[in-house]
């Protein structure tokens, strides 16, 4: 059992808030990712869990045991928290061999030489580095160093893994491989894992739950699908997904007893909505609202279709498995579209698109808060 609870965590650096009023609960055996742009407070949050930073107020509780509480006068130092942490730089000790890097902490635990040796071999086997046991970190590649850091962490058998952008120093190919390995590691060990990254793809692939942060505030916590399909506010909607989600400013309208979202020639029907919903929506949106739709959710046709919107292609960016199109409507709204594989559509071609109301979310333009989602 290893669950983590952060209560009302506040932390400022010389007056500038890094984390404000953070409340977060991480369940046992879960893989939770803290996702956000640089400076959003995600690394600070991780370091607060590790004990390397002291919050100004709030409580850190692990397995029901208070690790930090200024109010109650409790501080458990990092060296007593028994957590595992992988740093972005790996933080391997450069003057020690792989063996020594792993065994140093074990020597501290009053284990026999034999036991230590067994553990070192066991963890190195797990990360497939047995033959590198007597190398120095500088003699290993980036990916191998990363695996030594993993081996060093699991050797101490912590029940919680903390990882601070562990893959960001690797090249793109290796990153994909290591992603799979980290997921397997989590699966095999069953350790509760808190993972910090700014890479939304990493977050989506690895996590049980994603906590999106911005400016020291937890914006939303949810499963990858929830985060992707039902972002609670515009920041989350725009931060997750590539290419960036399309957002269209517009207003509510009612015509022939049906409700619409309107922006000049763009008009999408709001499905399953009655008058009372509508008045609630109007109140929530305060008049103006923003519709969002993922690029892959927009239908594309080279020929005119009834009800579809005519647009002009402004750029075509093929990427092998997919092609990203940028188009512009007559009313000067720019949209991104995603098509599978390659296409013969060219710049300045006229194509027709369909903004599927069943894939559209609506936000209050002023507050950026979600007011209506297709994903329940």
């Amino acid at each position: 059992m290893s669950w983590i609870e952060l209560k009302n965590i506040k932390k400022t650096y010389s007056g500038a808030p890094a984390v404000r009023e953070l409340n977060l609960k991480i369940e046992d055996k879960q893989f939770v990712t803290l996702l956000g742009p640089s400076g959003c407070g995600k690394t600070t949050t991780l370091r607060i869990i590790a004990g390397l930073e002291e919050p100004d107020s709030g409580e850190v509780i692990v397995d029901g045991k208070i690790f930090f509480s200024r109010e109650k006068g409790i501080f458990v130092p990092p060296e007593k928290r028994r957590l595992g942490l992988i740093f972005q730089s790996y933080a391997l000790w450069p003057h020690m061999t792989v063996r020594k890097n792993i065994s140093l902490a074990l020597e501290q635990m009053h284990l026999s030489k034999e036991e230590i040796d067994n553990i070192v071999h066991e963890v190195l086997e797990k990360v497939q580095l047995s033959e590198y046991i007597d190398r120095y970190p500088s003699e290993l590649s980036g990916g191998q160093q990363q695996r030594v850091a993993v081996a060093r962490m699991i050797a101490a058998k912590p029940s919680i893994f903390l990882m601070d952008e562990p893959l960001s120093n690797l090249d793109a190919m290796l990153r994909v491989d290591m992603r799979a390995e980290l997921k397997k590691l989590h699966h095999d060990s069953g350790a509760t894992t808190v993972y910090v990254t700014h890479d939304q793809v990493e977050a989506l692939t690895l996590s049980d739950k994603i906590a999106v942060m911005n400016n020291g505030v937890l914006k939303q916590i949810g499963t990858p699908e929830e985060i992707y399909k039902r972002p609670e506010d515009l920041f989350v909607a725009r931060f997750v997904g590539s290419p960036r989600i399309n957002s269209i400013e517009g207003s509510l309208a009612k015509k022939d007893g049906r409700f619409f979202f309107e922006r000049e020639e763009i008009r999408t029907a709001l499905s399953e909505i009655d008058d009372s919903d509508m008045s609630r929506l109007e109140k929530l949106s305060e008049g103006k609202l923003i519709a969002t739709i993922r690029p892959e959710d927009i239908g594309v046709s080279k020929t005119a279709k009834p009800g579809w919107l005519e647009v002009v292609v402004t750029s075509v960016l093929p990427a092998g498995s997919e092609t990203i199109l940028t188009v512009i409507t007559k009313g000067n709204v720019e949209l991104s579209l995603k098509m599978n594989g390659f296409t013969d559509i060219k710049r300045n071609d006229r194509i027709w698109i369909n903004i599927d109301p069943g894939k559209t979310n609506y936000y209050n333009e002023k507050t950026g808060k979600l007011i209506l989602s297709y994903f329940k």
Partner: protein
Amino acid sequence: MADTPLARSAAFTKLKFQLTRLRYRTDIILSIIFVIVFGFLVLVPLIKIIIVSLTYQSFDMRVIRDMKKLGTFTLYHYKRIFASDFSYAILVKPFINSLLVGFGVTAMAMLLGSLLAWAIVRTDLPWKNFFDSIIVIPYMMPSWVIALAWLIIFKNNRVAGEDGMLKILFGITPPDWFSYGLFPIIICLGLHYYSYSYLLISGALKTVNSELEEAGAIAGLKKWAVLRKITFPIVLPALGSSFVLTFTRSMGTFGTPALLGLPVRFFNIPTQIYASISMRNMGDAYVLALILVVLAGIAIYINSKIVGVRKSFVTMAGKGFKNRMNSLGSWRYPVAIIILLFLFVAFLLPLLLLVWNTFLLLPGDYSISNLTTHFWIGDSDYRIASGEPGIFKNPGIWNGVWNSIRLGVLAALINGFLGLFIGYAVVRNRGTRLSKSLEAISFAPYVFPSIAMGAIYLGMFAKPLGPIPALYGTFSLLVLIVVVKNIPFSSRSGISAMLQIDKSLEESARLQGLPWFKRFRKILFPLTKSGFLSGMILTFITAMRELSLIILLVTPTTRVLTTIIFAYEDQEEVQHANGVTLILITIIIIANFIVRKFFGNKSLMGLKES
């Protein structure tokens, strides 16, 4: 309000939290201890100087003749020094002399240093590595070695003792201004201090990527414009630093002005302080010392402004880049030979003269029949040198060798560790007020003129002070003062060593459950070892050649080589003085060699940090 049970228990939890937290924050504990201890060792002397300068001293009673006033507040010393008939002799003249020495030495040292640095770093000069390693040797010698050699050559009959070589061999009597006073002081100190400028400027030049200059040339700048607009601004901070360092040091220097200035009553502020202290006129001495403190403070302020600018250039170092050399063309070998000649004059010739001189029975007689080994291995002979036995048979000198080495090694070890601990405490807390005060207070001993600091410690530790027993006359006092005086340098090298270690290396050890002491021993110490060693050899060298700091504190049993040399020179026993100087230099060079040989050859790099 504050007394309600609730508020009291809140205060109690607060305290409990801080205590549990502090148990694991060795950096904060170290900071607090250091700030208190150094504050005591630095601020108490400063306050003491100020108090003494503002009260009547027993020396003044000869003039005042009113014993009741002893120790009471007065501006008497300030009036005497700043506005009395003595002002010109005590303050104005020494002050002007100090400034002249300061400017003269700085100009000469910077000119030599930057020319040598440019030639060695940025041109296709031959034998560069040889030059680069040998050019800093003058740094290892006491600054007054060249002054001793100067006296051998250019001494005239102004003072007692034999004539110089020039008179004896060529019959030329050099004029007073050439033999003593300002001119030789500037030359001798300039030949010593150029090594500082060289180290700083060559370090900066090495970081100038020639691609930056090429980019300037491509952008259409003329050669002179490239130098002025690109190279110069990058080297400017180093030039500024070396100006401030050389100026403050040469202004406050004691040995050379004492040897070359006192015979013609040429005083600078340090020798004037020494003279006042010798007369037990503490009030005057301390006012003068305060003037030096203030001047050094101003210089440091200027330097910190300059170094603040330099930080923005530091990012350029570390990456290997091509450095295209300027071609000297047909001047390559002539320039190299000129540099060789310069090194000969600045370093080898003085040493050779000292060696030769120790083999002369009567100084000044250069005939073969006058050669003797008496001063090295002779037994005591009442007809020669007041019966002083030869250097190798002289228990006083052996005791001095032992004391010097002991002092050097102890100070090096203590300063080495202190430097690392201070570096750790400052770097881990970087940005906090505690860290800033520790950094400032570690740098404070720098502003004390050595001679004045010696005088204060003499007074401060003559009687038991709190838990500290009376230290006067003990060897511990010498170690203490040398350690304190060197803290600015060792803390700076400790800080830069610690800055090079990413804090995640320690943090990962924390999370792995290693307690502080183990983290220090297994991770921080091994990783900072090279900085630690270079800091140590630096302290060793400075401690071995220290004179003005300890000259007032030594007693017959605690004499070290430098004070023995000074005493011999004072008694006109020149051969002994020169011989002991040679032993001192030999020990320093051997020690440096051993450290470089066995602990990697990075150690001399540490010199660049001072």
